């Protein structure tokens, strides 16, 4: 039922929470934002890609934290006082997951209607555009609206539990 609610709201293209990452402003569907935390100690997980910083304890649940700068292969910046973690709910076929992304700073909440969201241009393979929902212009700024489900659900993160544990 929640999934239906989400799609209804997505269709209207309601509110987006925007954040800054390397001087660019990105937006995520606000209904997917569970909370915003300050950056804290993270337990690294072995044998995982660099951009997965590790996991944290979020009131009893283990939540993986992903650094979007590293994910987008941008220049890394040391974490400062404005560095925050946005905890998001990611919808996959099997169930909903909670994941966190590290961003430079949180910006605003904007209303972006469906028609204001323009499709992203094809960068010709330089940059994968699967996880970009579209581009919007607010106050002469360009906001890149992200599709969280595609961004945080790529093959590296997908739980393909082959043979239920026989691989190990």
């Amino acid at each position, binding site marked *: 039922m929640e999934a239906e609610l989400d799609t209804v709201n997505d269709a209207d293209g309601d509110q987006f929470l925007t954040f800054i990452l390397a001087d660019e402003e990105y937006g995520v569907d606000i209904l997917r934002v569970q909370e915003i935390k300050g950056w804290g100690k993270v*337990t690294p997980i072995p044998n995982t890609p660099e951009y997965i910083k590790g996991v944290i304890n979020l009131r009893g649940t283990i939540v993986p934290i992903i650094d979007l700068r590293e994910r987008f292969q941008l220049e890394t910046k040391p974490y400062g006082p404005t560095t925050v973690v946005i905890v998001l709910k990611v919808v996959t076929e099997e169930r909903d997951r909670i994941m966190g992304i590290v961003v430079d700073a949180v910006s605003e909440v904007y209303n972006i209607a469906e028609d204001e969201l323009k499709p992203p241009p094809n960068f010709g393979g330089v940059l994968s555009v699967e996880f970009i929902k579209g581009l919007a212009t607010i106050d002469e700024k360009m906001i890149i609206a992200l599709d969280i489900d595609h961004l945080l659900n790529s093959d590296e993160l997908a739980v393909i*539990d082959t043979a239920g544990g026989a691989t190990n």
Partner: protein
Amino acid sequence: MSIDMSQFHQVFFEESFEGLDSMETGLLELGQGGEDPDLINSIFRAAHSIKGGSGTFGFTAVANFTHVMETLLDEMRDGKREVTTDGVNLLLASVDVVRDMLTAVRDGSSLDEERVGSTQAGLEAMLDSTEEATGTEEGQAKIAPAAGWQIVFKPLPHLMQTGNDPARMFRELAQLGDLETEVDLTELPPLEDLTPEECYLSWKLSLHGEATREQVEEIFEWVDGDCELNINPLQPGSAKNEDTPEIQDEVPEKTKNTQAVSDPAASKNSTTTQKSPARAKSGGDSGSIRVGIEKVDALINMVGELVITQSMLSQIGEDVEEFDQASFERLRDGLQDLERNTRELQESVMRIRMLPISFSFNRFPRLVHDLSSKLGKKVELKLSGEGTELDKTVLEKIGDPLVHLVRNSMDHGIETPDQRVAKGKSETGILHLNAYHQGGNIVIEIEDDGAGFNREKITAKARERGVIGENETLSDEEIDQLIFEPGFSTADEISDMSGRGVGMDVVRRNIIDLGGTVEVTSRPGEGTTFTIRLPLTLAILDGQLVRVGNETYVVPLVSIVESLQIRDEQINTVSGRAQVYKLRDDYIPIINMHDAFSIQERHGEYADGLLVVVEGNGQKAGFVVDDLLGQQQVVIKSLETNYKRVKGVSGATILGDGTVALIVDVAGLIRLSRKKSNSTLRSVA
């Protein structure tokens, strides 16, 4: 106004499966000679509910099938039909079919239509056959009548108040063929005394045509119980009508209490199961759980105490200004109370997930019953300790391994009656399933008094497969362990249930995955005993905290053999890369945790560190760690919920300071490091 019925499906399925289980238990008892009218009644009622429910939800196929079963049971409970072994077996097979049908409807899986059809035909054939085989021609004719049916329909007065209308039913009947109706007005009272809502009429109907009995009965299904209904075939020469033996009066004077158990040999199964209502959710992962009220009450009490302790503590916290020695003491006491309350609450909640193992044991009487007739062996099943409780998840997962072990015992262990008598044993073999608590574990024993292991055969097979060397001699225990090797089987032929050698290693793997162990002891000629040990709960682990670099990891205590200070001289290198440690007489591969987990390079000599000797999957290894921190019970949190499975890590936990610590999967890590060193070896070579 249409109601969305699908929300009720879940409940319907749960109840129906329970009903099927209780039917099965009842039928098994019936087969034992338990000719209790109440028993037959309860079996009938279960079938009736399933029929009604499936009809309501539009699962017509199920409803039709169950209807035939119900008719058969109805005759049995009215005493019109004897309870025969064939009947019981046929009904047992039907229960299986209904289970399959319901599962197919619920899961959308495929269904063996042929089996459904043939079982249904079998039921109908039984319904229509007579004890004295008179008029078999007519018997056949009832299934597919050429001439038609004569129906005597006498509604009870309240019939119309149930919402049924005879006129409507007749209209439907008329669609099946040529319908002649003859109304009987004898009961009709004078107009002044007439109550409009009551039915005083009865009818004799003649339906000519090729309708089947089922079609006719279906029309009258809704008024079942609210009328008297007689359906008899119409003979072309209608003078015979009165002489046509009606099904209802077939079985003459035999009283209800005689049971024609025709084949004593086939069903000599006495079970000593207690008559627990079989509410087993055997095999299926169900989303709900039944909890005894006392457990919930205990929980409520404990939460109450917790609330009291919490308010006491917050009160102390409020008086911050006057925080003196006395307050400090009270704070300490309060915290101790809190610890006790939390621990009790935790135990209490975990007990909610505990179900008695009888839910798993309940499927075995049926299994043993079927297998013993299939194999031609006589087996008596003894169950003890059915009340022993274990965690629901463990219970669900231990079911299949247990089934496999029981099958093995019956197939390979217990001998045929002739063999047994030749050995001087009793004809009937005994299979004993026993469960009890021991320490923090539940122990399940499967014991048979069969032939035991043929150790020569096992050793020969192992040599043949290269599992052991030609000249290796093994102790008896070691030989017994060989059966757990993959692909191992000494069965001469592969029967459809065992002998393929796929089973035992999977069984052991499943049990190990549950955190348990399985052992076997065998006494040749006397019998074999399998002992399974399982932890009482999955979610908690006794762990040893270790520090590696800046990170803390948890190593399961059960995997740790010993820990020691590293002595440089004991370290040897193999092929320039892999390192081993000489521990007494063994060489144990050293796993550098920093390497294995790709943390930053380890600084300093090994001699600064400690070696934790672990065992995983039968292999020993040594983890190099920087420090041993305490031992504690940790709650296992899954990494997979929000992330995914990581090799070498079996989960995570939250330490006292709120940080996350990863729990090491010992077997996995050993495998992982071996792969790594193999690949580096290959690159070197």
